[in-house]
């Protein structure tokens, strides 16, 4: 381990050019006169560092609102359904449930984790016109950073918990993270309403208890 100075000058001694230059480098090596070669191993913890100096965590425990996607909220559903995505209100394609800024990202690796419960209606997965063994529907999920997909999953079917994680290197600068889902398209055999006394729109999917955690480590 190096010490902060390599040559200790003694009173009355002559200062050689090399000795002076070594000290001079140490003096100008940083604002505070120390550079990385002079710090002892395993000497730094949070007490030495400013907040967010080497890493930062962003998170939301109920993203985007109460943990539920709110892009689709069909109110014309029966009482035993959630006000959520139906064939009547869902636009199709990749659907963003929300975008969050990661302000203060200083460059380096970014780990992202998105978890949620997903329900996908699969009653009509084995339609006569779908072919066998059928075509179950899934809730696909992906995470984009600054418009670029960093992770995508086929997702879950029926009603289950799901976790999507991804990691990527990014240059310094504020990042924008977009969380998106995509529902499998309905087949021609899929119902869009329930009948009987209810005769209302049929819940096709919902995403709830959604949360994310982003972990940035610099350089």
């Amino acid at each position, binding site marked *: 381990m190096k*010490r*902060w*100075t390599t040559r*200790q*000058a*003694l009173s009355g001694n002559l200062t050689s050019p090399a000795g002076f230059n070594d*000290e001079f480098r140490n*003096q100008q090596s*940083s*604002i*505070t006169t*120390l550079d*990385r070669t002079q*710090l002892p191993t*395993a*000497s*730094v913890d*949070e*007490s*030495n*560092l400013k907040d*967010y*100096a080497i*890493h*930062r*965590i962003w*998170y939301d*425990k109920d993203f985007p609102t*109460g*943990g*539920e996607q709110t892009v689709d909220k069909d109110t014309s559903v029966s*009482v*035993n*359904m959630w*006000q959520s995505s139906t064939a009547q209100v869902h636009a199709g394609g990749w659907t963003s449930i929300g975008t969050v800024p990661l302000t203060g990202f200083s460059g380096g690796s970014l780990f992202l*984790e998105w978890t949620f*419960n997903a329900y996908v*209606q*699969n*009653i*009509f997965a*084995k*339609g006569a*016109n779908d072919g066998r063994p059928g075509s179950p529907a899934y809730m696909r999920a992906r995470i984009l950073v600054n418009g670029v997909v960093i992770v995508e999953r086929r997702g879950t079917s*029926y*009603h*289950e*918990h799901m*976790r999507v994680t991804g990691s990527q290197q990014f240059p310094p600068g504020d990042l924008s993270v977009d969380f998106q889902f995509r529902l499998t398209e309905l087949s021609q*055999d*899929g*119902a*869009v309403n329930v*009948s009987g006394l*209810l005769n209302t729109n049929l*819940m096709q999917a*919902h995403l709830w*208890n959604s*949360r994310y*955690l982003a972990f940035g480590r610099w350089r």
Partner: protein
Amino acid sequence: MSRITRPRIIDGQTVDATDLNSRFTDYSQPAALNAFNVRDAAVDLGHLKRTSFQLQQMDQTIIGNNDWKHSTFNTVSGQTGTPAAPHIVSDGGGTPTPLSLGSGWALNADNILRVYWDLSVKPYYTGSRPWANVGALSNYIFPHGSGSGTHDIATGVTCWPFWLQWDITDATLTNWVNVTGQSDFNNGVSTYFGNQLSQCESTSVVNAFLETAGGPVNGAINTRLAVDVGWTSVSGAWHYKEGLGTTTVYGLRVVFTGVCHSLNNAGVNWLVRDDPVSPSARLDYNGGSLSAMVVRIK
């Protein structure tokens, strides 16, 4: 920890031995350096302390009745009424299997608790199509393929919700409460009991049973096919950041109830117990794991 301030050496000045030695003394004091004295970029991986700094705590345990071959497992039934105390994930002898955190982990505004768990489960039911019972939420009605009459069929929403409890009182692990943001599915709404979805921050679900239409045509149903869920798994993830105070966590455990179904009331989405169905619902569960860590947030 003090901030070391000495005038920098400027052009034209001489560097004498006394000055150099004084600086050496300053910086060689034990614990003399702090953020004022060290540039962030001056820190490399080798300089970082390797214990209790970024990853401050980590622990894990096996939960449930662990048996890879599923030759032994625990069986529980669905619950009805209120208050319904949740099932506690336990070993083969019925003893709960929490994650004990010893003398406790202190959580404050500077760190975040991350919890991850999984459990091997097999949901099924007894009797005949309990989702068709009178008053059940767990079925929809669709037209019959013949053009007259209707068929009921399971919605596929019906599920077993699992969630986390913690002991934030002491290390005796006898004071379990639901984690922050999580309720116990005993809140009344209409004639049901459950949680608003916004009260389910640590909840993970697994299907209770499945039924699909056999060869449906244009939204009409001719036959119904019950599909076994079989042995599958349920997993969960939960994050918690303390506010301005401090919370000490002594233990974590996984609990569950069931079976539950979607409901909307006055524009609010709920997950409520489906009492006409629950008595026929069964859940076999095996083993899994529960792990937790505390990570510095900044």
